[in-house]
């Protein structure tokens, strides 16, 4: 059972990694907690479902989820973040909360509150390697997570766009003085994080094959914990922290009690915040938050 639980933990970890990364893209660069990301994840899932239900192939579903969520993220940025850029950090956070309320309502009105289910699961073939059973979809999710993280790391660390992102994260005003269009960069950050959340939504939604407008709520909160544990501004940190927390959660359920699961995850998060606030892979302790 242990090995199977590890696989379960890794899959759960992949979910957390992708969403944590979405959070950290915006948080690391703009210092804002974008609470609407959980709903971008949810919407991505619904977009993906719609494509699959129309008998179109999986890559198209993923694309639809990413593009759809990115577009919605643009709306959030333009209305919810841009005008509130210079306000204390709690204000844009609450604004994104307003958006998440709206998206949940819209999704409920379009698709209903009962779970939307896929009749035939996508990539459902299962592979049995000894005591472990894993489905093709799960392998896709794990593989896609690693690929997306690597892609994101490449963009941030090796491209000029990435340099611009890092410059704005470091110091917005100086970046602008140096010719970086901070507004464009901010929009890009939102779009990237939206696309990531949307991809996560499609992949994960299709894996579990049953979604509701409220799937983002619980997962979103845990993903914030994962982001913190991995190190808010560390991309590879999310890749480490995600599976770490996923496995910790799974092991708590398997060997401890499923009742104390939340307690363990949030407790761990608080311990990390207190002892090593820059996260597991964090660099210097300079990631101090701005005044609220």
């Amino acid at each position: 059972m242990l090995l199977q639980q590890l696989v379960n933990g890794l899959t759960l970890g992949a979910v957390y990694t992708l969403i944590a990364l979405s959070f950290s893209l915006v948080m690391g660069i703009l210092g804002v907690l974008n609470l609407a990301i959980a709903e971008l994840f949810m919407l991505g899932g619904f977009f993906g479902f719609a494509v699959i239900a129309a008998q179109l192939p999986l890559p198209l579903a993923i694309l639809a989820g990413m593009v759809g969520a990115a577009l919605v993220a643009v709306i959030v940025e333009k209305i919810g973040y841009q005008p509130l850029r210079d306000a204390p950090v709690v204000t844009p956070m609450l604004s994104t909360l307003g958006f998440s309320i709206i998206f949940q309502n819209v999704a409920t009105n379009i698709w209903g509150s009962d779970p939307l289910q896929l009749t035939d699961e996508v990539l459902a073939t299962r592979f049995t390697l000894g005591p472990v059973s894993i489905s093709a979809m799960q392998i896709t999710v794990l593989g896609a997570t690693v690929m997306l993280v690597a892609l994101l790391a490449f963009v941030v660390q090796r491209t000029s766009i990435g340099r611009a992102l890092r410059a704005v994260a470091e110091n917005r005003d100086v970046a602008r003085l140096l010719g970086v269009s901070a507004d464009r960069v901010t929009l890009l950050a939102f779009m990237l994080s939206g696309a990531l959340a949307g991809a996560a939504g499609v992949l994960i939604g299709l894996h579990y094959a049953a979604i509701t407008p409220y799937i983002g709520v619980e997962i979103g909160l845990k993903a914030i914990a994962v982001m913190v544990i991995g190190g808010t501004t560390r991309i590879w940190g999310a890749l480490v922290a995600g599976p770490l927390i996923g496995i910790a959660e799974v092991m708590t359920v398997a060997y401890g009690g499923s009742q104390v699961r939340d307690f363990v995850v949030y407790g761990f998060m608080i311990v990390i915040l207190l002892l090593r606030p820059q996260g597991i892979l964090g660099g210097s302790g300079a990631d101090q938050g701005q005044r609220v």
Partner: protein
Amino acid sequence: MISVYYAGLLADVGILLLGALSVYIILATGQLSLGNAGFMGIGAYLTSYLTVVVGVPITLALILAAAASGIVGTVVGFPALRLKGIYLAIATLGFGEMVRSFFLNFDTMGGSGGFHGMKHISVGYIWAWAAGILILVVLLERSRVWLEMRAVHDDETAAGLVGLNPTTIKVGAFSFGAAVAAISGGLFAHHHVYIEPGNFGFERSIDFVLAVILGGSTVGPGALVGSFLLVLLPEYLRFLADWRLAAFGVLLIGMLLVRRQGILDRSLFNALAFRRAS
């Protein structure tokens, strides 16, 4: 004579007001707490235990619960010193979830089945506490202690250099806020005569913050305005039927865009109080 319906709404406003004030007090020292529903839960369960199981009269039970919650607030306040801004907010969020998870497993007080047996209290009693604490906060705002809190809020280092003790002030704020939130919880428990862990989750903590931010985050009575808004809006938006929640989201965003300090700010407050702006 006020209708029972409006009396019920007023009771909800009073309870929310106390929760909002608990956030406001802590916010005044520059700390955002997203976990005050945890303190509210502690207050609710402890007060209920005292009145139902031990037989303590409600007022004494509330005071005891507030004191206990204040101690928890102090315990939370110390590690909170190490965190700033959004990181502190996230940590308090984690704290709130942990408290909720605790009560979910705490079978002595019902666990997920909830707890019954409380005696109903009147709207008047709720407002005796709510108004009392609101007045206390308003008075506090005119005192030296508040100046010290604002100094810590604006620039902690400078405050330290001037001889203030940011530690005492910040931890003290957490403590006081926790006590006020506990009273909110105790009153909630005795107004609804039934509590369950789900009442004290992230959504509740966010309600407190919303009331402060929307109503006015720079003056105490802003929490009052915000509480009225949050309780009355869902009632008045009924006509929107299927789109009620979305409309609330739109209003929230709109308010933040148009007047980000909230409805009530210092100059408006002074004008309303027929006082010259100081």
